[in-house]
């Protein structure tokens, strides 16, 4: 059907720009994930101090300074990678991207070490008490999101090394970086709740 009347209508502004699909979708994804994390954070806060027995946060937890610095700087490095990408410095882009990946890996390794310490030295498991339950589930949920992000980052690096990533994909990369920033922002919240408030 042709909108014949359109020709007879008074002219409207010729500009008709709508937001990018990808941006809206990623914002929605971030909102939905934020809702998911909120519930786990609420459970953590609700159960603070309510463990009937077993190890307690104050006794067991050490502030993960190094892994936090790694994760938060990976947000910076991904921005640098994007900037290099927009300026078409492929080498620079790949380098900063790789550093982002390595920082993420270091974060996960650090988390794994902490868990190993808690499991073996302090016998804290998810079923030991409420602290164990809420700790492993919240940190684990976050770490799983980091892992997914890491897999996507690695995928992009591989595609880039094979020459498949072009300027047209700038927005795709930006969306991945938004997800990555979200994961970092969640870490700020989790860190504050678990290691600062919770102790």
């Amino acid at each position: 059907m042709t909108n014949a009347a359109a020709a007879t209508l008074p002219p409207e502004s010729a500009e008709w720009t709508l937001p990018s699909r990808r941006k809206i979708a990623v914002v929605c994804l971030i909102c939905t994930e934020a809702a998911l994390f909120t519930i786990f954070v609420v459970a953590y806060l609700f159960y603070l101090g309510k463990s009937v027995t077993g190890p307690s946060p104050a006794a067991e937890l050490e502030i993960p300074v190094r892994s936090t610095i790694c994760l938060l700087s990976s947000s910076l490095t991904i921005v640098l990678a994007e900037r290099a990408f927009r300026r078409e410095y492929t080498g620079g882009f790949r380098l900063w991207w790789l550093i982002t990946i390595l920082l993420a890996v270091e974060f996960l390794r650090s988390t794994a070490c902490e868990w190993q310490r808690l499991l073996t030295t302090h016998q804290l498991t998810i079923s030991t008490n409420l602290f164990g339950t809420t700790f492993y589930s919240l940190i684990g949920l976050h770490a799983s999101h980091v892992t997914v992000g890491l897999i996507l980052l690695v995928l992009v690096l591989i595609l880039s090394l094979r020459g498949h990533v072009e300027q047209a994909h700038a927005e795709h990369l930006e969306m991945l970086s938004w997800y990555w920033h979200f994961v970092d922002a969640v870490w700020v919240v989790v860190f504050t709740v678990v290691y600062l408030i919770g102790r």
Partner: protein
Amino acid sequence: MASQDLALSPAAETSLPLTARLHTLVVTVDHKQLGLMYIGTALLFLVVSGGMAAVIRLQLAVPNNTLVSPQVFNRLFTMHGTAMVFLVGMPLIAGLMNYLVPLMIGARDMAFPRLNAFGYWMFLFGGLLLYLSYLAAPGLAGQGSAPDVGWFAYAPLTGRAFSRGHSTDYWILSLLVSSGGSIVSAINVITTIASLRCKGMTLMRMPLFVWMMLVVSGMIILALPPLSAAQIMLLLDRFLGARFFDTQAGGSAVLWQHFFWIFGHPEVYILMIPGFACASEIIPVFSRKPIFGYPAMVGATMMIGFISVGVWAHHMFAVGMTAVGNTFFAISTLLIAVPTGIKIFNWLGTMYGGQIRFELPMLFCLGFLFQFLLAGLTGVMLGVAPFDWQLTDSYFVVAHFHYVLVGSFLFTIFAAIYYWYPKASGRMLNTKLGLWHFWLFALGFHLTFDPQHLAGILGMPRRIYTYDAGRGWEIYNLISSIGVIFQAGGILCLVINLLWSLRHGEPAGDDPWDAWTLEWSTTSPPPAYNFETLPEVRSRRPLWDLKHPEDPDWKYE
């Protein structure tokens, strides 16, 4: 079913072999086909779950009945509730959103067609997983069958100690999968509405249907994760021995209730608002007037969306919250009645001064209006916390929410089916059969659910597989059960109508109802690409402008 719908579309009139048609369904990413698949599957689940309700009512028709054992009964009401909410309500909404939103905004498809397909298959597999529990939940130890913990699965009944076997695990997993599908669908709808509107269609020129689906989708992406989070926690409790809801370890059973209802209350608005959306399209067309107070309707819907996340604990008035807590939630619950009531007035204002055509879509909307008024009022009663202390967990609540979900939501779905079936299939539904459907179903609905209010007032709790004589409940239960026959008759008329009209219905043409939104400007059924040229609009009713060039809407908006 959907495959036969496709056979009617002009391009596919040459009949393909069945395997080819089924293959088309499996690989399709067309929003119209997926929309119809959602609706068709939902109607199948409606019949199955409705059958379960029939057995429930048969068991409760007389006191001390032994038609089914308590175990079977408890599974029946759990599966009935779970299936109706997640496998009938949500996919009906997804189907309507996916079919109509692109057409109404003048787009060629959804923003993410493949994601759309993914959402459908997630929903279907989740649904099949739920029913698989009948066979697979016994596992190796022979315990368990379908879930029997109630559709809201309160802790600690769902813990390993009290819910043996894997029935609860099937409840969790199937819903996690289905909810994933819903969330994905919602993201798709939001993106489509934000990014694919045709030229000239500003947000305040969108059909009200689209606005409401936008709000619903926003609610879905925020309200479903709390359910998923709680279910993940329950899964961790059951499989890894976590202590989230383990009261012996200091866990809180009430925390489950909070998380569940933080999802559960917005969920019932997620179910109801699309009903409003359909009514807001149908009532104006059949009253021959534009919707009264479009901006207020948009505002009221958004307010409902916002407030709905602040009322959840009105499902928990009996849990022992403090007086302050109970008062807060009573206040928020009573407040949400205001924007909801305003909508009824706006529909009233739309009809007032119009020329109401009592065709089938409008007839069902008529039923909806009266029944929703009653449902809203019983909701107000339940919002007054002290009154709720008597009414909650009784048949009064059962009557209330069936008034909302059947008397209001399902009636608007029926209205939508009669209204948009001609667009989707190119044929009108048979009016005579439709009238039988309406009257049988309306009679059955009232026979079943009106007496339940009284049973609740007389102290009958819900979720009981039987009751003793001498409580005054017998007559109300008997009448309630008789109503099932009429409802079943109505549904049967609908199903026959849907199938018969595919081949023998009157050809509909592009615009059988003389309506005003963009979907009526293309063929019935629409071609795969929706519109030959993408439309351009200047007002909320582009087809009105075309039909009435001397008095177009954009002069007044």
